[in-house]
């Protein structure tokens, strides 16, 4: 897909429309009649407003300055100007959408747009009752399993838009061949916890619920920032490290990752905070032991059917016993099979943060009821 003619219609249209967008985006004037709206926390998208026209750009998380998608959002209640190229236009509100991940359909449910969701993926792992019921009733279908798209069913849905997590090779190639409009959703590259939640605003634009989306996000941001402010004054910041070896490989969250941000905001000192990685990276267990042996807390997320214990952990690797956090029974545990951690926490960073604060600094949140994390018994 090419967008080389993209700016001409914008300029043309800007003559006719000179309204301004009202939203909680940061405003940034570019030229007459145009407003570049950058999100407050997210870095993965931006919106250029021109009257009723919204130019939505999804930025490449890898190449600075390049975009994965640029779409023109136009209200379908208005006549479509001839100058708008059809293939790059999304008529809003979108009525028929395939949302492949929970961070896409989750906010749609929050916006009350259940009925427009026609397709999801990996339904085996979905915990959400609304989606499960819709799957059961046939109101929506599963269009991808184990990373492989069921292209025929997907095409047959004739969705207005497919939201997908950008992934290399065949997957996006076969999606592209479907002729369906695709919108990349690289929200998981946001390292700011609020940035990930802020993607609800993109959905707000798509379904013409901008105001409601902004309200939801603003209240999340308010709670989050309030909690974050609480830890500013703590005298002592406990040391924390995270995760464990899996199949011989121990991936630790990068020093600039989402998890590292949460640790910092929760008033903890992440042992690898000096690291510059944005994603998880592999380290050998001895290096981790050397750095984290005396750390106060150890955070582990794992899916288990049973009541996970310290003994279960030590059975996986005797070396785990050497960690002080293990000896002092200070492991912060999230059972991803019993909580909706993967599904919901990206949209509820304030609850995630509260969990950590309540454990690391109990005096700050004495009445907090744990949502995802508890101290492992």
């Amino acid at each position: 897909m090419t967008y080389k003619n993209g700016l001409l219609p914008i300029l043309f249209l800007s003559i006719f429309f000179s309204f301004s967008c009202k939203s909680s985006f940061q405003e940034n004037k570019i030229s007459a009649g145009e407003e570049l709206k950058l999100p407050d926390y997210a870095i993965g998208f931006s919106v250029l407003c021109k009257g009723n026209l919204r130019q939505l750009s999804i930025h490449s998380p890898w190449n600075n300055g390049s975009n994965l998608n640029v779409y023109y959002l136009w209200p379908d209640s208005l006549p479509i100007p001839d100058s708008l190229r059809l293939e790059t236009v999304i008529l809003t509100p979108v009525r028929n959408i395939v949302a492949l991940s929970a961070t896409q359909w989750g906010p749609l449910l929050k916006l009350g747009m259940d009925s427009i969701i026609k397709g999801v993926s990996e339904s085996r792992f979905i915990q959400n009752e609304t989606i499960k019921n819709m799957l059961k009733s046939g109101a929506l279908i599963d269009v991808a399993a184990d990373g492989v798209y069921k292209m025929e069913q997907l095409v047959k849905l004739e969705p207005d838009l497919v939201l997908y997590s950008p992934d290399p090779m065949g997957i996006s190639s076969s999606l592209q061949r479907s002729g369906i409009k695709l919108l990349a959703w690289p929200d998981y590259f946001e390292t700011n916890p609020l940035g990930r939640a802020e993607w609800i605003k993109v959905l707000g634009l798509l379904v013409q619920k901008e105001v409601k989306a902004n309200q939801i996000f603003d209240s999340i941001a308010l709670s989050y920032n309030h909690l974050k402010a609480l830890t500013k004054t703590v005298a002592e910041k406990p040391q924390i490290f995270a995760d464990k070896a899996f199949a011989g490989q121990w991936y630790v969250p990068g020093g600039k990752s989402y998890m590292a941000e949460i640790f910092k905001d929760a008033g903890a000192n992440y042992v690898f905070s000096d690291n510059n990685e944005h994603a998880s990276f592999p380290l050998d267990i001895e290096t981790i032991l050397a750095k984290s042996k005396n750390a106060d807390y150890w955070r582990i997320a794992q899916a288990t059917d049973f009541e996970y214990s310290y003994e279960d952990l030590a059975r996986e690797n005797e070396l785990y016993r050497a960690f002080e956090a293990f000896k002092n029974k200070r492991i912060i545990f999230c059972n991803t099979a019993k909580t909706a951690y993967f599904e919901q926490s990206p949209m509820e960073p304030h609850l995630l943060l509260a969990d950590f604060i309540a454990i690391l600094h109990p005096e700050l949140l004495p009445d907090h009821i744990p949502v995802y994390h508890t101290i492992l018994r």
Partner: protein
Amino acid sequence: MEVQKKFRRSFILMFSSVFLLLILFLLNLLWGSVSISFNDVFAVMTGSYEGVSSANIIIIEQFRFPQAVTATFAGAGLAVAGLLMQTLFRNPLADPSILGISAGASLGVALLLLSTGMVSGQALISFGWISHVGIILASFAGAMLVLVLITILSKRLMNMVSLLIAGIMIAYVAGAIVGIIKYFSHKEDLHAFVIWGLGSFSNVGLSQIPFFIIAVSLGLIASVLLMKPLNLMLLGEKYARNLGLNVKHYQTILLLVAGFLTAVITAYAGPIAFIGLAVPHLARNLFRSSDHKLLIPSTIIIGAALTLFCNLIARLPGFEGSLPVNSITSLIGAPVVVWIIIKRQQLYSRSA
């Protein structure tokens, strides 16, 4: 009399194979997780499009048709590559993957994944559609690299058994390097590599189909031109040389043709197992012949038909296209190979 009966039998068999191939191709167009009527398929294939919903047009034109064509040509090409190698090495268990050519393709892809990750510090995904073309080129480069290595080794190593062992060793080394690369790769790219490794005929889009068909056809035509030397090679190197064949020269040509076919197909469809190994044996047993004038065309047809059949199974309702085709070809191909080994054992004990 005897000759005429034999000829009639071969003719009937060949005719039925072609018929079966056409039926299977049609079934591949008709059969999918979404049910589309014969009339719709017919309308789209004849270009009239009358009364066909746009979704159905896309499904047939962009997915079912390219997939069926890819399966047809990939199956024909892999089967012929297997036949060439079995005759070249005079080893019934030789096939494209045994010489390490498929492993070379995997190595190429893995190297691409790692090098982009190392150079830019980013996952390959960042390059969008370029990554798709990149994977095809990388797989091709890897396969050709192993091929050149094998060709050089074949000049050095006096006999074919050593070369076969060298091929297996190359495959091991390539596999080991892939393992190391996997360790350093980005998680997202690793996922992509795993998916590619499952093999699929859905990677080739309608726009790439012409190139794919031309490339595979070149290999198939080359193999048709090699029928006479192939028949001579069956006698063994010395007899072939005595009968005027420049054996070393043709060994190189056979390696190149078989390698080229494997490289192109692996690049587009990922590693597809057992077609190259099993189909030539099916053709030999069916036509009860080792004459390449008969084997080359029958291997092409049976290879295409069997692969279309496997692709059909992978898309059976219930699997909904998510079943990796490589599992199906292995499930069908492996028993064929076992059957061949048992049959050979029996033949040997009978002749002894």
